[in-house]
């Protein structure tokens, strides 16, 4: 009887949270799935059901392909830069905590994560400026020709990757620092007694032990990078006097289809594709973590 009461109490206690979650998270996802099967121009009361026609059109849509490829390159580019760099930086910070500059290092790395996105992107826009930017000035010191960072199709992608990585790094380092603090000291002491160098300890102990952290950081970074939008918007479409090359990404394409082309159903089908990608990535994370747990 008591057990049943407790169960009812527990269910009642979490019901409001579940209700809010369902309304705020699940309902919009369901609505997107529903809209993706309809043709709707946002203004009309009619939303005719068109089955999978939106998805069929996506397969032949040049701009969608471009957006999908660009977004994937950016997401995996950010992943490749952020995860190893964050781990190395976290290791350096963690093993140098006695330094009087330790706080400064942590703050410096974390600041980009809390800085507002638009002014940060504006600053990077100046850094990447082909004529007046400090990046080209620095390259010229080494005899490298000035580069059109925001106009060349490849360099503009690299510019977005650099900006996104710079922003993602702080959060990743923070998570890794927590991971480093939870590693068992005894293993490192044993390795030291066996004559392992600091690098060897890092390579053979830290990296394997931090695998769950790396998986979490990796997937979180990847999912976040797949939603890239504001960075490319600010870098490319500022004042008319200094426009950059428009790097088409999925979120930008969705917004354009919704509010410029008035094709909400079509944009919803793009959102569904993005959702599927994110779900697959999350599934991979869970699978790998479960595999890790099973070995234990």
């Amino acid at each position, binding site marked *: 009887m008591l057990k049943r009461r407790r169960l009812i109490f527990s269910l009642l206690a979490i019901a409001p949270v579940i209700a809010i979650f369902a309304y705020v998270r699940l309902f919009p996802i369901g609505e997107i799935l529903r809209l993706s099967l309809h043709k709707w121009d946002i*203004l009309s009361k009619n939303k005719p059901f068109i089955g999978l026609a939106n998805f069929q059109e996506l397969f032949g849509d040049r701009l969608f392909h471009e957006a999908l490829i660009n977004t994937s390159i950016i997401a995996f580019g950010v992943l490749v830069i952020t995860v190893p760099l964050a781990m190395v930086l976290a290791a350096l910070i963690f093993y140098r905590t006695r330094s009087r500059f330790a706080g400064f290092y942590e703050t410096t790395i974390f600041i980009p994560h809390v800085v507002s996105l638009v002014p940060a992107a504006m600053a990077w826009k100046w850094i990447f400026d082909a*004529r007046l930017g400090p990046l080209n000035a620095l390259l010229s010191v080494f005899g490298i020709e000035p580069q059109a960072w*925001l106009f060349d199709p490849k360099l503009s992608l690299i510019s977005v990757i650099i900006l996104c990585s710079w922003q993602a790094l702080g959060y990743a380092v923070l998570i890794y620092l927590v991971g480093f603090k939870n590693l068992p000291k005894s293993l490192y002491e044993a390795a030291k007694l066996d004559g392992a160098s600091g690098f060897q300890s890092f390579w053979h102990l830290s990296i394997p032990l931090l695998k769950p952290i790396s998986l979490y950081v990796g997937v979180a970074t990847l999912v976040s990078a797949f939603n890239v939008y504001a960075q490319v*918007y600010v870098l490319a*479409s500022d004042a008319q*006097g200094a*426009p*950059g090359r428009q790097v088409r990404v999925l979120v930008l394409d969705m917004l*354009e289809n919704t509010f410029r082309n*008035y094709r909400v159903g079509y944009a919803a089908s793009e959102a569904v594709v993005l959702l599927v990608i994110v779900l697959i990535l999350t599934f991979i994370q869970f699978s790998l973590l479960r595999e890790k747990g099973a070995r234990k």
Partner: protein
Amino acid sequence: MKRLITGIAPITFSAAGRAALLTSVLGAGFLAATAGANAQSIRVWSGYPELAPFYEHVAEGMKAEFPDIEVTVEAIALREHERRVALGITSGESAEVLELATSIAARYLENDLLATPPENVASFVADPANFDTFFVDSASYGGAVFGVPLFRGQSALYYNTAMLEAAGLDGPPTTMEEYDTYAEALTQRDGSGNPTVSGWSLRLSGGGAGITEKFWINMFQHGGQVLVPAGEGLWKADLASDAGVAALSQYLDNLHTAKTVTVEMPADAEAFEREQTAMFIRESWVIGDIAAKAPDLTYASTTLPRGSIVNPVQLYVAGEGEQAEAAWAFAMETQKPENLLWLLDNVGWLPNRAGLDYSEILASTPALEAFVSYPDSYEFFSIPAIGPIDEIMTRTAAGLQAAFGNAALAGDEAAIRSYLEGLDSEINALLSREGLLGE
């Protein structure tokens, strides 16, 4: 020189004496329109931040006659404005006064989402003495007036007179061939031959449909258009025509052969104001912008070789009841000749109203002459107000942007035509999807 819009019907800018008569007619209209429009608070949504002072000026002028109407002006960038209108109207939270271009308004009118004007407003707009037929049609849907014509985007060539003089050029270019020779002569280069000041600033990059619009204007000078009529209410793409090939060839030659401009160079009004380009094509608002940001710039404007784009913008009303009445009163207040002249003089956008006396403003701002006075043969065109026009413009812009970056296309007419045929196919597929493709 004559002031008119050819191909449609002449707009006659009458003598100043007519203004008094029109004002009294308007006054009667205001009274009828605003019966019951008291103690109302209305919002004005604009897609041009530079127009905020104009609307505030109009609101200020209303206070004496309508002390109880509070007007709030919210002017933001055009693309964001279009988004908020879409969201605002469908959620019932939009402003009462909406500033919309014809092509955008068509979607809302199709869905019966904008208010029908009172009889006095409709008859005021439909009166040929007030507006040319072209502007009446632009403000109408299904033969009925829905908006109050306000201003239009119309292009002309701006050129830096000091740079032309330094290059030994006598007067502005008058043919598209001369645009090329002028661009070469006006380009300033560093020791390595790289351009530091572009001879002719072209719209080469950036987001949105502006790239297509600017290309369309240049293509028009070569004798063609991106979309051409192909039956009753039907269209087809015509980029791969001789005019389209000539226009794209001109872009590519300037970019990759003569190198009078590069994609990463500063461009548009900002570059012109900073003397980073010698020539560029733009609307009349640039004059006000130059006056504010670069008052010492020595420049002039001139008509384009064949003609100009005209993008009419109207004021519409959303909602009903007393608030709608107050909103119509505001829309009509903008039509007072003194307000429209204030608009041209202080902001630079061209009023659509006929019968305005521009003589004083032209005397103080001669650069406006190219926008209100043009040859008899000068032609005008508008971007078709069809549902998928934004999608067509945006997709074409992406294709053109890729072409601009392809140096291999420069000088290869067959390759250019083939590339444009690809873009035509894409546009025609969009038209076909919407049932708008003609033969």
